[in-house]
């Protein structure tokens, strides 16, 4: 009799507690992937740590420039990139080392695509409704003259006239002949790939291609970023020093 009672109690407990556990922890529903239009690149995107280029195929002249910059860096006299003077990083450096989010907008019915970088609010425009400006209209620019078109779901952007900066990242050199082709492809709801081709006939032995990967951050917003307090400056000897306790 006692054995029957204990068996019954055990079965009751197993039934009750298994039901309680099931009620407390329902099986999670599979997470649905939001639908997206692959031609809609709008939103705030942040580049991942993956770097598109491990190295560059410099010719002898530019390999020499690169080596000199490395030597100066090691000696505490680093090459002064444009952003050391609160100027824009430029297109190539923005896409190889993007430590700040970008926001992409469409306007004029999608015929003009705006890409804004949070850092100093730099904005560059991709025109889908015109060819490049003529050579006599162009001058050295930070983000160049960019024209684009769609190939299926890939936005192809062609940029020239990038002579206002001279760094592919924080140190590697480029010339004023740098030509950048970007192929933006939204491969999933939250992933945007930018296949970059750098062609620099004055600096490279051949063009190079690499891919920068961006992740969507729908809950972020871009903040105001004015460069007001750069205290790392170059002294008259070319050394970087800190200005004393500057006020913002």
């Amino acid at each position, binding site marked *: 009799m006692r054995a029957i009672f204990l068996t019954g109690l055990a079965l009751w407990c197993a039934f009750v507690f298994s039901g309680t556990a099931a009620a407390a922890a329902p099986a999670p529903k599979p997470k649905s992937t939001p639908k997206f239009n692959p031609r809609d690149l709008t939103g705030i995107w942040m580049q991942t740590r993956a770097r598109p280029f491990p190295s560059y195929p410099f010719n002898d002249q530019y390999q020499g420039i690169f080596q000199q910059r490395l030597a100066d*860096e090691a000696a505490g006299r680093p090459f002064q990139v444009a952003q050391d003077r609160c100027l824009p990083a430029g297109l190539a450096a923005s896409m190889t080392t993007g430590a*700040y989010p970008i926001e992409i907008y469409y306007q004029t019915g999608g015929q003009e695509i705006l890409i804004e970088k949070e850092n100093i609010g730099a904005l560059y425009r991709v025109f889908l409704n015109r060819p490049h400006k003529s050579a006599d209209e162009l001058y050295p620019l930070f983000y160049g003259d960019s024209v684009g078109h769609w190939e299926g779901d890939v936005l192809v952007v062609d940029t020239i006239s990038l002579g206002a900066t001279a760094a592919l990242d*924080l140190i590697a050199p480029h010339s004023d002949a740098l030509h950048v082709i970007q192929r933006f492809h939204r491969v999933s709801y939250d992933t945007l790939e930018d296949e970059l081709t750098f062609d620099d006939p004055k600096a490279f032995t051949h063009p190079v291609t690499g891919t920068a990967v961006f992740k969507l951050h729908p809950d972020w917003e871009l903040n105001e970023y004015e460069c007001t307090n*750069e205290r790392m400056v170059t002294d008259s000897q070319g050394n*970087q020093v800190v200005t004393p306790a500057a006020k913002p």
Partner: protein
Amino acid sequence: MRRALSVWTVLAFLSVAQSGAHHSGAMFEPVKAVEFEGTVREFQWTNPHSWLQLVKTTDAGAEEEWSLELGPLVGLARAGWKPRSLQPGDKVKVSFHPMRDGSRGGRLISVTLPDGRVFNGQAGAPPDAPSGH
């Protein structure tokens, strides 16, 4: 051994050089970290870098002012910093990479607040972000 140390030092240097991402890190000691306690004189909530002006009292009783560079305010804000996270007069403990030239400055690694909270001084970019600018 010497070669291995050299490679490691270069990698560490590049890591520090790129961690702040706005400019080269050549002015900082790449591996060395210094820690001390001090009093906040001013917290500059600015771009391209925020700065902590910290007063340290030496063993001899003299006061020294140090300038410690943080990430840009936009990155610090995403990591939980607030414009008034550090207030003048706060007693804090700092860890930083000192200037190579020996001047009173460096790149802040972390700061421990009076209430025990620890903030990353180089939260200039979200964790999954690349370094660079």
